[in-house]
């Protein structure tokens, strides 16, 4: 039976999906701006962060209104709570995209330190994780969410590897320090984006199964760690 206020939940869901798509686009464009030294694109990413921020405000407002007026229970209650938390993570993803774009602007003024291979690869994994986690808003799937959580260590591993590599650059060629630092921060931003995807995936397990798996280590071990 459809209730007259079900459209409110659908609006909430569509705003979450839109916020997810916008955040993913922001990260993708920020990395593209970095790799192609496209300052105009980087500037557009920085300007568009406001869209993500506004979506967070709308989603919070809709969630509070829904809880206040409709007293949701069971799956619906979990959905509204998870949606609200996910929107905070997505807002942070948007901030990280904006940070990457700002560093891309600085890096565009200098020759590349090395070909961009690891950073786009890392971004690719982080964005896949984010996409898979967000897909659970449309098709609840705890297994898919758990798979996202397990991938976090792949991104962490690349981040550590980049850190070591960039450290050696800085030691060997002090002239690379400023560029290497920017790249380290970008790598860290991507690692954080994967963490936000992991947070959202953990919430999706709660949405699917009412089971809180946060701060438990067993799921974070990937086949790479074995």
């Amino acid at each position, binding site marked *: *039976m459809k209730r007259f206020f079900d459209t409110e939940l659908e609006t909430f869901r569509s705003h979450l999906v839109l916020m997810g798509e916008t955040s993913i686009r922001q990260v993708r464009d920020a990395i593209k701006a970095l790799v192609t030294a496209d300052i105009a694109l980087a500037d557009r990413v920085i300007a568009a962060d406001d869209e993500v921020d506004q979506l967070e405000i709308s989603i919070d407002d809709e969630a509070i209104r829904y809880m206040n007026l409709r*007293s949701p*229970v*069971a*799956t*619906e*209650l*979990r959905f509204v709570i998870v949606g609200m938390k996910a929107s905070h993570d997505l807002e942070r993803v948007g901030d990280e995209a904006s940070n990457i774009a700002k560093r891309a602007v600085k890096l565009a003024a200098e020759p590349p330190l090395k070909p961009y291979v690891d950073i786009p690869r890392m971004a690719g994994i982080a964005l896949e994780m984010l996409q898979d986690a967000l897909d659970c808003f449309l098709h609840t799937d705890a297994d898919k969410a758990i798979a996202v959580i397990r991938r976090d260590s792949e991104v962490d591993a690349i981040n550590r590897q980049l850190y070591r590599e960039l450290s050696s650059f800085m030691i060997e060629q002090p002239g690379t320090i400023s560029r290497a630092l920017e790249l380290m921060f970008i790598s860290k931003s991507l690692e954080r984006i994967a963490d936000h995807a992991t947070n959202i995936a953990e919430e999706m397990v709660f949405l699917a199964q*009412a089971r809180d798996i946060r701060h438990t280590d067993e799921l974070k071990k990937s086949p790479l760690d074995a």
Partner: protein
Amino acid sequence: MSAATLSPMERLPAPPPSSPSLAVAPVAAMSAPAADLPPSRPIIDIDHVDFFYGQSQALHDVSLRLDEKKVTAFIGPSGCGKSTLLRCLNRMNDLIDGARVAKGSIRIRGIDIHAPAVDVIELRKRVGMVFQKSNPFPKSIYENITYGLRLQGVKDKGRLDAVVEKSLRGAALWDEVKDRLHASGLGLSGGQQQRLCIARAIAVEPDIILMDEPCSALDPISTSKVEELIHELKKEFTIVIVTHNMQQAARCSDQTAFFYLGRLIEFAATRTIFMNPSNPQTEAYVSGRFG
């Protein structure tokens, strides 16, 4: 009328001969405790009960065990059998012609309540009841509370006074009425009248209190007083509450049973029923999608 206060004139007829003697029924398999609660001492054991109003079957093979000093909520759409089951627990349905438990048993502290040796008046003393519409007797507040005890022959004024104060305090009504104990119970507000009925029910120190939508006629303040009272009362009593208010069931009860079309669909910790019910029908009902 409160179970505690049935007068001898209102003694109920013996169960009709058609009622099977459940005392000799074979011991059936243990009925189900709430799915996800730690084991506790069941005080009420409802075992494979079928119930009929004449030809019409109102309960189908209902089994559940209710724990002592816990609040259990019965929820479900109108006509699902929740009130029928509640009224089975102190045999209030005996008052209805043709109403009968046709199969299964209900045991309270291990005693089959339909056994021939069970005195229904004694049963209702142990299992008190509070109704949807408050029903104080057209007597003073004091007499409302002492009615049951007087029927039991208690005449000692000191003891009666003590029970009145204890019961009214227990029902969170004492401070509001202590200066007018001899005024009519009917002069109280709706919420106060309902708490008076609760005081009257607890005056005879039952084990179990049945509440049939006790707040549905009350305003939000009175409702929250009764809910707070339920929270207090469960320290001493086992409470079974029928409610159509999902939020009330979620707030007040420890375990919740969902009924639909005379069947028990799901029985679990209240937190589970309202956070992650296992049956899709339960989820649809608590979310307001049907019923």
